[in-house]
């Protein structure tokens, strides 16, 4: 009898234990760490109050990183959410049915390739001498546009952001394809009888019908934009100088190069607040909270 009562807890225990230890406990600890100064191997921590945050707000690299994360967010929303939706709508259009399977698989391919592979590949794409990008520009006669994309401070962050788009558009596209496939076909047929054109159908049927997925996609993209680490780290390590620094790389450098663990925790806290904030604003905008 008691075992029967204990049973559900026993089944759930491994999940809760692992998540408690490796997901929830570190999150809580991070808030606490942000108020201390300590290094990776020293056992003692010094309480410093809000000093880490104050130092952070006076650090000009923090603002460069923040600005880059915001660029990341804006460009990702446009390319992934908008671009992904358009591609999905095209692939689900009856006119492209014949080849849509092929294109869908091809567009999704970058999603499943490891980011390290992609980032290293793009360090070749951007290579000033042999890179595809510069070769292509020369081919078009745009010699003066060629440059060391990752090596110049004005272009580095955008070159990095472009790689992320290249990889992730296919993922968001796939989410939209799944959403579009569940739209009742009659809606389009009714619009056809009324003689509606493609843009009309896209704006008045597809977009409202995938609203839920738009919310999810925006959420995924925004969270991704504020927590990004891999692409900038592998492609530029935040350079040249700090031109392509993002909060993620700043966090990593503070923790593991400069051994300022408390400072890194403060950055992590900011990242958490930003991504949660973005999520909350969105829930308000989309008003999907009610449906839960």
């Amino acid at each position, binding site marked *: 009898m008691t075992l029967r009562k204990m049973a559900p807890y026993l089944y759930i225990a491994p999940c809760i234990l692992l998540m408690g230890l490796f997901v929830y406990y570190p*999150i809580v*600890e991070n808030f606490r760490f942000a108020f201390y100064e300590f290094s990776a191997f020293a056992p003692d921590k010094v309480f410093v109050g809000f000093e880490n945050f104050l130092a952070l707000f006076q650090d000009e690299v923090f603002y460069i990183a923040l600005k880059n994360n915001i660029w990341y967010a804006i460009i990702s929303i446009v390319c992934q959410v908008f671009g992904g939706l358009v591609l999905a709508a095209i692939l689900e259009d009856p006119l492209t049915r014949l080849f849509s399977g092929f294109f869908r698989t091809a567009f999704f391919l970058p999603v499943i390739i490891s980011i390290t592979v992609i980032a290293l590949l793009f360090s070749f794409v951007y290579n000033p001498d042999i890179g595809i990008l510069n070769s292509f520009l020369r081919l078009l006669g745009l010699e003066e546009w060629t440059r060391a994309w990752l090596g110049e401070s004005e272009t580095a962050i955008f070159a990095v952001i472009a790689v992320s788009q290249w990889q992730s558009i296919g993922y968001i596209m796939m989410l939209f394809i799944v959403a579009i496939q569940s739209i009742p076909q009659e809606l389009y047929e009714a619009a056809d009888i009324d003689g509606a054109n493609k843009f009309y159908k896209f704006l008045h049927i597809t977009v409202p019908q995938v609203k839920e997925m738009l919310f999810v996609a925006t959420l995924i993209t925004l969270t991704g934009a504020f927590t990004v680490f891999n692409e900038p780290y592998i492609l530029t390590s935040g350079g040249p100088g700090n031109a392509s620094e993002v909060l993620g790389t700043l966090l990593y450098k503070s923790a593991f190069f400069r051994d300022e663990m408390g400072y890194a925790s403060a950055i992590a806290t900011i990242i958490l607040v930003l991504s949660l904030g973005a999520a909350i604003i969105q829930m308000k905008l989309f008003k999907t909270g009610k449906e839960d």
Partner: protein
Amino acid sequence: MEADKVTSTDYSIQSTRVRSNRRKNVSGAIPLYTILIFYFLIIAYPLFWMVINSFKTTEEIFSNSWALPTSWLVSNYVHAWNTGISGYFLNSTIVTISTCLLTVFISSLGAYGLTRFEFKGKKLLLILCMGGMMLSPQVSLVPLYKLIQAMGIHDTYLALILPYVAYRIPITVLLIRAAFLEVPKEMEESAFLDGCSTWKVFIKIFLPLNLPILFTGVILTAYFTWNEFMFALIFIDSDSLKTIPAGLMQFRDALQTNWGVLLAGLMISAIPIITLFLFLQKYFVRGLASGSLKG
């Protein structure tokens, strides 16, 4: 498929009107295909470039990176494999298989507990199991690093496997729970009447009945684990224990400018998961879709 049928009957009913529409349709398809082909080139060209140049010498990549290789150097792949990729490959395989099995098993247990029992605190435990989905690992990097050091598992496979499993539990529980909810109550009731324990019901009924969704869980976890970079970079120091994503950074540094071999290494790293995907696309997409729908 059904939609196809409906449209084809519609065609015969209002044939004249549709025929004129059809001519319009052909011209309407051109801009759509233009966009698709344009984007296809953007995606395919770098990948194609990687494939052909992975068979060239560095000099040839420099002198003519656009052309097909004059002779296809399979030796680049052998060289890459012997310059560390084989070790990273082995590590990735060990970590991925362990993570997949543990994640899916533990998540199934959790999903079973959360769907087939009524008990105090069920709602809270459900929220705790799935709430972690929104938390990204970056945010707890420093405490996690400290924790792993304190546990004495830094620089071991466990330093990757345990956090991976923990971070994959929410989405996997979500997936499996949805499937378990669909299992009719009568099935387990008759098993209980036969004197089966809940554990037996779990092993003999729930797991075998839901193999496809467990499989989806395995694939999604494999995809995540095979490609994960940040933990792999930070929680493992020894080159001999590195998984592919982190190992490739070392590999690049070791090769300096031996680009053909580097590209061959990239190819070897990407091929297993691409193959897996091409064969199992259906499971993959279903998993991604149902995982995202939660929001």
